[in-house]
């Protein structure tokens, strides 16, 4: 077996900078020295593997995975799905996707959370799944609410779902957030706009997916995710006759 090629360096102009002045929390938590840029080594070119035995039947279903039997979380029922690929467009199968979110009132179930919106006794706010053989994932949940946060005098987070992705190598490890098409708060949020390029922000906005919507049941949102790719895929492509 020949070694796989190293991973492409991250495009640091595409990601948010460590220090984004409008996002107060980044001020004291941003390294000021340059990151040490190195080609990936075997330590980053491998990554943890998660088996199907890890995943419970309701892990992907946030409407029910914390709810009392026969009950359900309160809020608009939504389906969130998409495909996880690398930068060459190759689907990433059987990779762990974890999510967490506020309830439909914008309240997180967390000891440090103090927003006055009500908790939902039937909503925990976490979920996970493995992508299928084609890299697809699928969650069922409630539409999270927007909520205020102590950044400026009147700061509101757009509705969002946090995503944690593993890929097939630790070099690909990523945490990001998914937003909802049409939410006017997206463009007001300093966490979102810590990302310098509009096109990059747009890639985090899920789009309404009427084709996958379940009639009389739930609206579907599509959110595709791209993880780092390897520097060369040319030989793989040639093997396929390109």
């Amino acid at each position, binding site marked *: 077996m020949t070694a796989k090629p190293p991973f492409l360096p991250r495009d640091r102009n595409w990601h948010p900078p460590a220090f984004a002045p409008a996002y107060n929390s*980044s001020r004291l938590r*941003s390294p000021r020295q340059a990151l040490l840029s190195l080609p990936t080594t075997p*330590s980053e070119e*491998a990554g943890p593997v998660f088996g199907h035995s890890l995943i419970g039947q309701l892990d992907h279903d946030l409407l029910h995975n914390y709810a009392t039997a026969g009950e359900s979380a309160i809020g608009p029922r939504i389906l969130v799905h998409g495909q996880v690929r690398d930068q060459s467009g190759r689907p990433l199968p059987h990779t762990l996707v974890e999510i967490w979110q506020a309830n439909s009132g914008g309240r997180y179930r*967390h000891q440090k959370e103090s927003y006055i919106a009500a908790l939902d006794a039937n909503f925990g706010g976490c979920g996970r799944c493995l992508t299928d053989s084609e890299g697809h994932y699928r969650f069922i949940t409630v539409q999270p609410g927007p909520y205020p946060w102590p950044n400026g005098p009147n700061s509101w987070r757009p509705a969002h779902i946090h995503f944690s992705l593993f890929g097939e190598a630790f070099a690909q490890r990523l945490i990001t957030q998914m937003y909802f098409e049409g939410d006017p708060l997206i463009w007001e949020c300093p966490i979102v706009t810590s990302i310098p390029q509009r096109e990059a922000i747009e890639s985090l906005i899920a789009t309404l997916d009427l084709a996958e919507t379940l009639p009389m049941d739930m609206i579907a949102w599509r959110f595709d995710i791209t*993880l780092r790719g390897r520097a060369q895929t040319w030989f793989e492509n040639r093997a396929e006759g390109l």
Partner: protein
Amino acid sequence: MTGSEIKLQESPSQTAGPYVHIGCLPIASGIEGVYSEDPGSRMINEATKGERIKIEGCVYDGEAVAVTDAIIEVWQADSMGNYPVEKPSNDTFSGWGRVACNQDSGEFEIETIRPGAVAFDEGRLQAPHITLWIVARGINVGLHTRLYFADEDLANANDPVLSQIDPASRAQTLIAENRGAGCYRFEIYLQGDRETVFFDI
């Protein structure tokens, strides 16, 4: 041009936020009954081969105040220096773990095994090390660093990654202090005079 067939940009990173525990360590954050165990919370069991070690430490911000909402992920080789690739090499060591910093003190504790020396390229080895990945409110892109061991002087001196740190004195920020009896102390400074070396790797 031969080479990359890169068609897509990586999804941009966003902060894990202050409530990352809900998704990553739900049981520790008080959300019971969804998962049977917090992912990565137990790295070793009786059958795991290798010398037991404990790593304790703390993450500090630019004013040297402990960060109490961070989560640290651990990724390391087994005692022989191998990463479990393709499939778990055995059921006893996956190489991956996840810990939360204490929500009052900021202290963290990792119970694992001492990793072996890992391959670098043909003929060269990397000194035994543990990859750490730190996320928290205010961290826009997860921070990737490495922990090396103070009692591996020779291996550290020849390590192909440590040797690229400039100025060389900053390499000290990656050396965990040996507290004896298999216990190590590793302080992570996000900013300031003692800022830890973070990698773009």
